[in-house]
């Protein structure tokens, strides 16, 4: 009898231990490829950014011939008209990087204008030898303005008896090159991403 009682206790302890291990979970970390496409929910993530940058930068590079004169571009950023706090600066920075590396465009660094002015003023104030001072008035004028808008349409499943709630998100990013001389849109393209996510209504 005593042995049975003892075994029962051991069995309970084992069950408890197994449950503890299962419930505690194991903290893990792993590297994943930046090229992989993993979505935890329907919202914007790094895979979307990669898709947008790849599509638009490829399209922009096809706009000019390798042999033609390199047009000068200035980027005025991408407006965020979604319902998520998305840093669209990351998209425009990556597109700029691809364009600069391709050698087909010259990009004006608008963000550094104030710093350039500070540096030039410093040099012209007599702190730098005349021979080493940069010449003013030689900055490039932009041939085109690069700007765009990221928009989203979110549709949630209406309230009804169900176990999961579904959400549809449709993102579209329109990018344009506007000729600074004529004001005409010289090039335009867009990327579309549509995704559905489902989440349980009941949980722990």
């Amino acid at each position, binding site marked *: 009898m005593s042995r049975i009682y003892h075994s029962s206790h051991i069995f309970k302890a084992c069950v408890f231990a197994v449950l503890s291990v299962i419930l505690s979970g194991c903290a893990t970390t792993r590297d994943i490829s930046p090229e992989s496409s993993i979505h935890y929910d329907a919202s914007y993530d790094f895979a979307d950014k990669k898709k947008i940058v790849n599509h638009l930068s490829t399209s922009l590079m096809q706009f000019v011939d390798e042999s033609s004169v390199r047009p000068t571009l200035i980027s005025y950023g991408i*407006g*965020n*008209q*979604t*319902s*998520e*706090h998305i840093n669209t600066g990351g998209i425009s920075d990556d597109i700029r990087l691809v364009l600069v590396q391709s050698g087909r465009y010259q990009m004006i660094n608008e963000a550094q204008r104030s710093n350039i002015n500070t540096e030039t003023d410093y040099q012209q104030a007599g702190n730098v030898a005349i021979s080493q001072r940069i010449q003013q008035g030689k900055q490039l004028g932009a041939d085109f303005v690069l700007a765009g808008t990221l928009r989203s349409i*979110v549709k949630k499943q209406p309230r009804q008896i169900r176990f999961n709630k579904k959400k549809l998100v449709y993102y579209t990013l329109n990018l344009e090159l506007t000729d600074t001389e004529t004001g005409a849109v010289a090039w335009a393209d867009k990327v579309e991403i549509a995704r559905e996510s489902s*989440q*349980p*209504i*009941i*949980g*722990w």
Partner: protein
Amino acid sequence: MPATLSAFKALLWLVALTVLSGCTTSGVMQQAHWQFLSGDTAAAVSTLGGSDQVARKDRLLYWLEKGMYLHYAGDYERSSQELLKAAEYIQQSDYISLTSEARELLANEWASSYRGEYSEQLWVHSILMMNFLHMGRYDSAAVEARRALEVMDSRTEVLKPDYFTRALIALSFEAAQQANDAYIVNRKLADDSKTNALDAVLFKQASTLGFASDAVELKKRSNNAELNTSSNVAVLFIAAGQVPQKFSGSLITSDVTRLAFPQYAFAESRPEPLSVLVNGNPCNCSAISSDLGELVSASLNKRGVSLATKSLIRAAAKDAVADAAADADEIVGELTRLLLFALEEADTRSWRSLPRHFTMIRVPLPSSDTIQTLQISRGTQTQTLTIEPGNQGLQFFSLLPQQFVN
């Protein structure tokens, strides 16, 4: 003897449950609230410290209160950080939690995590919009505007009368140069609120967007009066009073059964009329207000059926537990019944640092190369603001109740 032991165990379990249910917010939150009420917002922020100081179930309240204290203190960056955490928490809590439901069934609603009234879930975005507008981050303000619209769409019947937030949504779109969205929201707001306070804004937006027939109609509606369409506008966000607090109401259905439900200590209130002088001249300003007391009370009433149902189920469950304990041992049964009776307590948690009224005033400014002054008077109290020359477009100011001085 084994039956008595089981009943004793059940009693111990109930005592533990009582302790765990904790029918009060944490001491830190209470102390911070008193400091806030006495006007020491900096001390209130400092008292709150890190979010680990409060129980997980009150984490939302922590972010809401701290975000509001920081908003009042003019620290819009940190206020936004706290309120964005609150917004994310609300979004993630949008499911039925079995553990919370079980806790509520056995103890009371205090035992589960606070998720905010519908109106509070909307105002997270309202305060965030104001913060982002103050910081000049107009795209982010517009993001919050869209999120606020999502919340409004999900609870239209309760939140539709929040004219202040609706005007704020339109303003955020306007600041982010999303004129079409701003016009749509303003147009609906003007129709619902039956006000002509937005005629000048609507006229300007309709003209800009090329909606010629709308512009003509608006001009006619204002009896062809001169509509001030100045591009330089000072926008005042004025907070007044304090939002009503919840208290616990109860209904004793028998000697041993009590149903508790939250209520708002709600009395009708109107904000004192405001007058604005621009450089000493009367201003033809438009004002839009919301009574947060009415809205939060309507939000609670909307949950009334669900709250009453839960209370009834809980009462039945508690009766069953007490009866089972009494079957084993009469004394333990009675003690259990008493304990469960005492445990029935309404959840009176709420976002307490909100004002009672929010008013938005648009003040068109004349072009000027000199400093301009705005004098805003409420009753015998006056607040003066100065606007530096060269400031163009929309400029935002927040005025708190304590900023009005005699």
